[in-house]
């Protein structure tokens, strides 16, 4: 399968009172046709800004893409005119956000919000758009579509609103959906419903997905490939199976070890990652994770490690001490 979206050396900065923050620092990743890729990391690691940069939705003048290329189906998105970019958004690449209420218009009916895109992007007549909207609601599991189309967002529950966002995202048959923490605001049983729905629809319609999340369990259940981000950089990438079975970066290993798991015997004590995430305005010259890392050596503070191949299936990690990490894992 060919690459649908290729991000190369993307760098996005924000001007803040504390100084310039490089939220995304030279990251490269891609999404192939029909697959589900995850960007995983904690708050401030740059995962959401990466997606916003792809869509060219980083708020100027504070935020700015300063370098890199974003190629979608071979076209350089950064070189497109605003008008051309608008046609890409919604029609070819759709986005789903964490809190649907903030991305739905509270004074427009559900029906109008669904038909608007169909009329603008696909040139449908109001009648055609209305029929398609009803179809979309049924597809995402909202029963009684005719009545629901006349309602407003506040009359929908959180789970229903997220279904509605998925319907809007699917409206113009996009080839890629960027989902930013799509289920974080939802309850556990509703989260399970929404994720199952997204998985089923992406399979059926062949839509590729980028899932942005901090939840390692969600990634394990739904992603084919995973990029782990820390302080604006990708520190490890691999297929989900390879990365979870054989983590090759101390941060990934730390994350996996710090969460209690229902499938394992209860541990007497959790293994946290010590310390705090770094201040992005004062990043060290070397590895940003060094200060919290159990495997750090002198070199880590000085030299920044690049991503290098560490195993099967394009598994890469940015760590000087990968081999020592391996030995530690083997003796666990």
């Amino acid at each position, binding site marked *: 399968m060919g690459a649908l979206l290729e991000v190369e050396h993307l760098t996005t900065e924000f001007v803040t009172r504390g100084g310039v923050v490089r939220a995304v620092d030279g990251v490269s990743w891609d999404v192939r046709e029909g697959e589900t890729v995850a960007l995983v990391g*904690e*708050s401030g690691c740059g995962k959401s800004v990466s997606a916003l940069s792809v869509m060219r939705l980083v708020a100027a003048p504070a935020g700015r893409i300063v370098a890199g290329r974003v190629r979608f189906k071979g076209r350089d998105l950064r070189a497109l005119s605003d008008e051309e970019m608008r046609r890409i958004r919604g029609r070819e690449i759709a986005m789903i956000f964490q809190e649907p209420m903030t991305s739905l218009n509270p004074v427009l009916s559900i029906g109008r919000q669904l038909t608007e895109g169909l009329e603008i992007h696909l040139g449908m007549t109001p009648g055609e758009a209305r029929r398609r909207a009803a179809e979309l609601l049924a597809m995402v599991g909202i029963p009684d579509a005719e009545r629901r189309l006349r309602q407003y967002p506040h009359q929908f*529950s959180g*789970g*229903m609103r997220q279904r509605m966002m998925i319907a809007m995202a699917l409206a113009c048959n996009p080839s890629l959906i960027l989902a930013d923490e799509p289920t974080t605001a939802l*309850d*556990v*049983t*509703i*989260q*399970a*419903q929404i*994720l*199952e729905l997204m998985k089923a629809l992406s399979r059926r319609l062949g839509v590729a997905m980028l899932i942005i999340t*901090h*939840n*390692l*369990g*969600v*990634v*394990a*259940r739904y*992603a084919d490939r995973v990029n782990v981000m820390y302080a604006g950089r990708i520190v490890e990438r691999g297929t*989900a*199976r390879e990365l*979870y*079975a054989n983590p090759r970066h101390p941060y990934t290993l*730390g*994350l*996996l070890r*710090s*969460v*209690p*798991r*229902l*499938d394992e015997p*209860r*541990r007497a*004590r*959790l*293994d*946290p*990652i*010590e310390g*705090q*995430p770094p201040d992005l305005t004062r990043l060290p010259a070397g590895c940003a994770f060094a200060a*919290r890392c159990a495997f750090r050596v002198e070199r880590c503070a000085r030299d920044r490690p690049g991503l290098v191949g560490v195993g099967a299936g394009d598994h890469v990690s940015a760590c000087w001490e990968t081999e020592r990490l391996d030995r530690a894992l083997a003796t666990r």
Partner: protein
Amino acid sequence: MTGGRPLLEVRNLVKYFHISGGLFGGREGVVRAVDDVSFAIHRGETLGLVGESGCGKTTTGRCILQLERPTHGQILFEGRDLATLGREELRAVRRRLQVIFQDPYSSLNPRMTVGQIVAEPLAVHRIVPDPVKREARVQELLGHVGLLPQHARRYPHQLSGGQRQRVGIARALAMEPALIVCDEPVSALDVSIQAQIINLLEDLQREFGLTYLFVAHDLSVVRHISDRVAVMYLGKLVELADRKALYDDPLHPYTRALLSAVPIPDPELESRREHIVLGGEVPSPLNPPAGCVFHPRCPIAIDRCRAAVPELREIRPGHWAACILA
């Protein structure tokens, strides 16, 4: 831990909220937030209280803290019914019932330094009236929660999320509490920080003999920290058991669905696991279903479930479930 008089007993707790029509003449009604809930917490134990939003777990905690007045039922602390206490007695009891909130940022005064925030209850409740000794006590408390002396001069916005939660814990600890209601204490924190705070709560429990009511929706975290676990759904307690029994052998279909919905960070295992995905959504507590409140979403419901409200029964010693099929 069992045996002897429990530290806290909740008996048939009911909390209804009345909704008026309001300016625009909306729907009037009664929200049954907590509907006949009973449990006990023993000295030194952690009782986990889990459920999804709107299940009544937070309201239950607020009733225990006397932040809400129960509609019916009793809350007994060290055997005394809190509703019968006079103002002064209640004040003394409330000191020993503390709370840690989900979002420390909204519960810390942004204009006060960390030192002032922790010192305030010590002064107001005359726990340490002498200012010099108070200063020393603040330093000691900051040490207990893993903060440094210089943090006392900082303001909440200068701290990270994990450090702010440590301040919230120090403030609760200042009152020398017996019971702490931990209301989603780690759910707003980053994954790498959650484990730090959970370890801290466990260390403090051992050191100071604390008792916790741990209210949360994350079932993996609750399993780690709790001795016993109570599961709520739509204002009702549906299951209550020892940690091991509840997680290894859940008896209520809602508990089973909840456990199955938690994704496990292992792709290999996830691909083999069977998932129970519940249909529908939690009904409105304004108009809960008749019979068992879970029956509209229950995968094993039978006719009888629509008619009769199932009682919380002790199915095995110490393992309670409110399901006629359990």
